[in-house]
């Protein structure tokens, strides 16, 4: 599914190397978690995969289902199946949540040569999915993320993910700003999307999210590289002992 080989990335403006040779394969149907101290390059990896400006890939490759992601515009990556749930979802005053979501769903369908969703079909689907995520109708009418609480923003991200049905879901510290109840709701939303044809890359600092979204594989990232890979027990080790021991042996 997602193949990252020897990925080197630097910040364009500061000429600073952030990723220094990331290798990662996420298979369809699997959930991979990436943990690591601040500044290790986790968010940069998610931004580079989704095509954000400001980063220069100096070496390496990244592909999804055999398609070269690095050659594509952000919207092409989305249509190819990449979805990034933002750590800090952007507020867009003046654009209705529903309008935005319908525009996005149909833009992706169009890009893939599929028929656009009719207004009534879209409405039916979005209402049903919003209900399971406890998103009320009022939130759908409001401008995108404007006036939403932290929990509401994250639930809105998961609603978008549910509507867009991506192949590869990247969750960038989705647990930040969530209380226990909101985390449970968001996790349930993610778990409902787990299936054989979809991969997940969950970036987090804490074990508590992984209590709800059970990973198949856990990676530890430090200084722009993946320094250790293991099973779910690796996250527990980090929770108990911090990164110091792992970094000492891994770097």
């Amino acid at each position, binding site marked *: 599914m997602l193949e990252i080989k020897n990925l080197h990335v630097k910040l364009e403006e500061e000429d600073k190397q952030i990723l220094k040779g990331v290798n990662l394969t996420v298979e369809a149907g699997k959930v991979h978690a990436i943990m690591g101290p601040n500044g290790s390059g986790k968010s940069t990896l998610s931004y580079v995969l989704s095509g954000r400006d400001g980063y220069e890939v100096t070496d390496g490759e990244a592909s999804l289902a055999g398609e070269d992601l690095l050659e594509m515009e952000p919207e092409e990556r989305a249509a190819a199946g990449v979805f990034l749930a933002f750590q800090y979802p952007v507020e*867009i005053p*003046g654009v209705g949540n529903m309008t*935005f979501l319908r525009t996005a769903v149909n833009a992706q369908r169009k890009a893939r040569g599929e028929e656009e969703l009719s207004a009534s079909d879209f409405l039916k689907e979005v209402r049903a999915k919003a209900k399971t995520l406890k998103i009320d109708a009022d939130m759908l009418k409001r401008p995108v993320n404007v006036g939403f609480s932290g929990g509401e923003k994250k639930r809105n991200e998961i609603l978008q993910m549910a509507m867009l049905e991506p192949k590869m879901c990247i969750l960038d510290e989705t647990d930040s700003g969530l209380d226990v109840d909101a985390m449970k709701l968001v996790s349930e939303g993610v778990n409902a999307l787990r299936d054989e044809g979809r991969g997940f890359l969950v970036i987090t600092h804490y074990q508590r999210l992984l209590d709800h979204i059970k990973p198949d594989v856990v990676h530890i990232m430090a200084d722009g590289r993946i320094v250790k890979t293991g099973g779910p027990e690796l996250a527990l080790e980090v929770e108990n002992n911090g990164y110091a021991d792992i970094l000492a042996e891994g770097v």
Partner: protein
Amino acid sequence: MALADRKQSETEARLAALTMPEGGCLTEARKAALSRVQTLGLPSRRDEYWKYTRPDTLTAAEAPTAAVFDAGEAPMFSEFDRIKIVFVDGVFDADASDELALEGISIDRIADICAKDIHWAKDLYGVLEARGQTPVARPLAALNTAFAQDGVAIRVTGTPSKPVSLIYRHASEDSDAILHHVIRVESGATATILENGPAASRFNKCMEIDVADGGSLHLVRAQGRDHERRAATHLFARLGTESVFKSFTLTVNGVLTRNEAVIELTGDDAVAHIAGACVGDGDFHHDDTVFITHDAVNCESRQVFKKVLRNGATGVFQGKILVKEGAQKTDGYQISQSLLLDEDSQFLAKPELEIYADDVACSHGSTSGAIDEEGLFYLRSRGVPHAEATDLMTLAFLAEAVEEIEDADIAANVVDRLEGWLARRR
């Protein structure tokens, strides 16, 4: 030739090309207005108030030609049940218009009033325009009062069941139209007026609005997409106690547009909202010039102007709030913002406050900036292509101005049109 002489000869040349309608109850007002034009002279770039906008093509004796643009789409507001009053190149078209009759409102043509000795409009025609000549001279408005051949006098006495729609069609490539409307909203009465269309190659329009105590008027206008048209419009409004006047103007393209609004809040607790949204391309030049005078207690005024400029377009905003002595508890708000989609476009702003009362809350702000890259990336990361994402961000930017439209259906109609126009570009 000395500057004053040149101004005088240019004014004379323009006046020579015009014919003043004769006779009737408006004659006195027309003659007084002509005298104002002759005294003031037509505007030139040397006048402070025209510093950012070249008036030459608006004042030239001969109107520049403008190709008629066929958008191939239904005119704005077609979906609404309304009374249609159609002007083609500034001339009333009886066949295309509805019968001018509706309960709660009376409508007469200015051309007909010219033939009468007595009419209520006599007490309003040219009156607010003359008041609006100080402290800033507006000679194009005086020229309009003197020479307008047509227009309507609308008197609102109740709550008409549907809006009055003034439709301006452009049919001839060298049309030069002057229209003057007067609107009197009686005490406690309320109405909505819709205006749309490009009108003519060159359009000079003046609207005088008197809202009596407790009256309410909503004005929504859409200036058509003709790329080569030139328009100078003046809106003069006087508001009585507890009255409300709200105006929203949508402008898309046009070589030159200068929209002036001169609003006087003369009765306590009056409310005036003046808003505008414009989207311009290339050689587009759009100027909003607003002067709001607070002359009573506890009044509220809002100015919300948003411009989206690209491919070298220019936007101008000159807005002033004058709070006179004794106009305590004034609440004045003024915001003018532009979204520049490239480095060739420019926005020139001159926001002003002049306050002589000591218990007021007045705020103003003006910004110009590029599109929010964070928001743009967010939309694109969801699969929305760059152009569509830019349009969505553009609509988001214009939203604060569009939200000034009171009627939700009309606001939705404006947004629909904007979406379509943005998608089809010019």
